């Protein structure tokens, strides 16, 4: 690097520099002999600006990180939607009308009747010698697997099915499960959407509650 003075005056000096390797020629005019102080002030100013810029960037980054954390939490903790579904109610209504292989007085019983027989006495036999409860369980399993095919490729991820004898406490209206007749839990029900439904069958002083929760991915 070669440095030479081209012109000099009382108030200003023109200083030119030449870069031999890159063959560049540049000149700067320094205004006065206060040049040193100006330079120093400029350095202080630019340092201050840099600090402000860094501060601003830090704030932006901080806000973005907080926003991302909140977004992540809200996505992970997506509220599970549970609601009554007419599809499930229709299924339960049709399920109860299904004609089983359990016979009574030479005629086959409907699913609703078989459930009542099973609730009455677990050891009760059908006319053809089968146990009412085992007919109920096998038919339920067959119907559920045919009607609600679930899996990873399917929109339906699993289901919960229960048949319980319930009674209501008069004072509070609270439901107490007295006896569980059948309970099936298949697939993965730890998902976003749960479509549920239940139906009641009158049974002595209590009710038989047939409940289905179908679990869908979001």
């Amino acid at each position, binding site marked *: 690097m070669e440095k030479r003075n081209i012109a000099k005056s009382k108030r200003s000096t023109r200083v030119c520099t030449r870069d031999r390797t890159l063959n560049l020629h540049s000149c700067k005019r320094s205004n006065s002999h206060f040049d040193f102080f100006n330079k120093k002030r400029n350095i202080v100013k630019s340092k201050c600006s840099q600090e402000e810029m860094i501060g601003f960037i830090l704030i932006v980054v901080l806000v973005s990180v907080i926003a991302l954390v909140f977004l992540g939490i809200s996505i992970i903790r997506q509220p599970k939607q549970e609601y009554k579904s007419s*599809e499930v109610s229709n299924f339960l209504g049709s399920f109860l009308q299904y004609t089983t292989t359990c016979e009574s007085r030479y005629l*086959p019983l409907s699913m609703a009747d078989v459930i009542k027989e099973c609730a009455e006495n677990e050891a009760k036999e059908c006319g053809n010698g089968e146990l009412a409860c085992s007919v109920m369980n096998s038919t339920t399993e067959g119907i559920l697997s045919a009607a609600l095919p679930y899996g990873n490729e399917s929109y339906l991820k699993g289901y919960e099915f229960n048949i319980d004898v319930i009674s209501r406490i008069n004072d509070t209206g609270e439901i107490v499960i007295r006896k569980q007749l059948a309970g099936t839990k298949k697939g993965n029900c730890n998902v976003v959407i749960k479509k549920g439904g239940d139906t009641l069958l009158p049974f002595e002083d209590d009710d038989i509650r047939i409940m289905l929760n179908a679990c869908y991915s979001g």
Partner: protein
Amino acid sequence: MDNNIKIKKKSQLKIQQMAFMIMAVFIFFILAGIFFVSVSVQGMKRDVTRLEREKAITTVANLVDTAEFTCGKSLCLDADKLIALSSGMQEVFGDLWPVAEIKVRRLYPLVSMQNIEDVECTRLTYPECNVFDVYKNDEVKTAGAVSSFVALCRKENKEGFVYDKCELGQINIAYRAVE
């Protein structure tokens, strides 16, 4: 004098800086607001779709309970009526049903051939079949389809006693596109 100008310039710079900052904050909040609104609108859209679907399923249930289909109980299809409807009655009842297609499928128990392929229900194949093509209108466009579980019942005779044999079925309805 010179000093005053310098101070004024500095103040102007500060005001400019603050204005830019306020603008940036304002734009940031607007963007955040737009993001929030779009997320909530998406949720609303999902709810609307779900409610529309529920409404369509209820319409199907109402259709099932009409005299042309019902076996006398709620959510119960008379399979004998379906056979009659699927063989030549479509033109008579077509205008009554505001839909593009009605199809009924037996789900349980499976007929012996059902594991391999669907067996369409005709007078020849009934009741060893699983699909009833009840109605189809080729002239209208279909907008979507909805299905509902139903009991599919028919009269059976056992040693002189007539009873309703009910199976599990699914009615599929394709609804018309609004033109």
